[in-house]
């Protein structure tokens, strides 16, 4: 797991400016910083444990402490909810990761009150998670499922270009954001993409 988190951490460093800029269109321009801090926290958690459930709990707490912005707290809640859901000693598997994604989405909806189409991270996460599960259920390989999830995430993220924000800071911006993707949604796509590359050619 720590190899995957390290890959994400390395990617996050290079992507900081892009996300600050995306967030600046509708928010306060700090999403890149948050992304970097979240990736560091998750990698730190992976160094502390190899147990999946523990990693989700520790990672959630570290993200909450080190990157407590909207995206960070939602991710923290989501990781902890998934961690609580998993049975003790649960093994990492393609199926388990499908469950984790589902739990995370439910928790983000619950805590943030947003739905599909509200111009948030969910607009990429929901279709990506659905595509992933569908391909795993169909017996496809993890790399293939991740590739398809990445495609779905990208499509979902792109779709936010034409959505008016209903929640979060972007609520205030009105139609000035039209034409730009939502930063959180784009982040979701990029994380799937990074993982997809990692599992295709680790």
């Amino acid at each position: 797991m720590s190899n995957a988190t390290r890959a994400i951490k390395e990617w996050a460093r290079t992507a900081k400016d892009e996300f600050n800029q995306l967030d600046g269109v509708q928010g306060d321009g700090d999403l890149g910083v948050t992304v970097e801090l979240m990736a560091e926290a998750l990698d730190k958690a992976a160094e502390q444990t190899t147990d999946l459930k523990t990693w989700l709990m520790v990672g959630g707490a570290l993200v909450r402490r080190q990157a407590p912005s909207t995206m960070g707290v939602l991710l923290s809640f989501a990781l902890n909810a998934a961690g609580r859901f998993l049975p003790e000693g649960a093994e990492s598997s393609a199926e388990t990761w499908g469950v984790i994604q589902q739990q995370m989405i439910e928790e983000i909806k619950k805590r943030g009150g947003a739905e599909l189409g509200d111009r948030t991270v969910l607009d990429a996460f929901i279709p990506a998670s659905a595509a992933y599960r569908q391909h795993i259920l169909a017996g496809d390989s993890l790399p293939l499922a991740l590739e398809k999830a990445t495609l779905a995430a990208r499509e979902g993220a792109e779709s936010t270009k034409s959505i008016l924000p209903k929640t979060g800071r972007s609520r205030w911006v009105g139609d000035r954001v039209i034409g730009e993707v939502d930063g959180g949604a784009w982040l979701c796509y990029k994380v799937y993409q990074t993982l997809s590359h990692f599992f295709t050619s680790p």
Partner: protein
Amino acid sequence: MNEAGVCMKKILNDAHQFVDESLDGILLAHSDVLHRVEGDPRAIVRQDAPVQGKVAIATGGGYGHLPTFLGYVGQGLVDGACVGNVFSSPSADAMLAVTRAIDGGSGVLYLYGNYFGDSMNFDLAAEMAADEGIQVETVRVADDVASASLAERQKRRGVAGIFYGYKIAGACADTGASLAEVKETTELALNNVRTMGMGFSPCTIPASGKPTFDIAEDEIEIGIGIHGEPGIARQKTGTAKELVAQLLTPLVEELELSAEDEVSVLVNGMGSTPLEELYIAYREVHQWLFDKKIHVDRPFVGAYATSLEMAGFSLSIFKLNDSFKKYLHAPARTPFVKL
């Protein structure tokens, strides 16, 4: 510019240490009044906390708004503040640490600006505090009229009007009022506070190294938020008289001010707008209200809620009654704010 951001022309060693080194400086300079909670460098409380028997006020938010939030920790205002990264919410853990350190047995009021990230964290902290038997109530400041319609007032952002929230809550708590009373009084006061601001130029978050937004040489952003969030319109700049009228009109309308009403006014600089200019704005505010026979009881002009070196200003109006006036006039003293 290098990774550490040294070439940003900021006083800075390492962009990632910006908040912690700045806090170090504050704690070194003001150790007579301020105190770090053991084990959490982002949780800062007054030296004499907890004040037994007094309702404690906790606040917090992202860094880069001095004197908001931390600068209001002291006598007659708030008891403790937790500090996030620049423009980012503090963690619920820091909030809990502050809560524990300031509770003097009469409960804690969370008083902070209405932002999603902060709300989620403060709510989580309140849950954790309740588990430990600490009574917590919450008041979210939502004074920025530019950020949502009156019908959706609870969705508005909290901006410079938080100053009045601190002043009233702090003075009310000092009278020995109960947690419920402090909460109610603060809410009542904030119902009578409205703010709107405009930005002239952006600021640069040290860890990002880029201006928070782009704006043309001759354009200003109306209704800007204190993180540089976009407002409701961009336009060419105007005279002081025009700018003040533009900000003041919606505030006065919503508060339904009329002749013989009494108000306090806060002309708040966002960071780099000189005091000299803020007083030109105050002159216009005064004349505008004077013409409508609205009386200014106590004006505040200066930097009360900033956005690093952003240029611009906001106007807040607080519609007074006798009880608010009493609290407003009570003495208050912190290393940053002396009334």
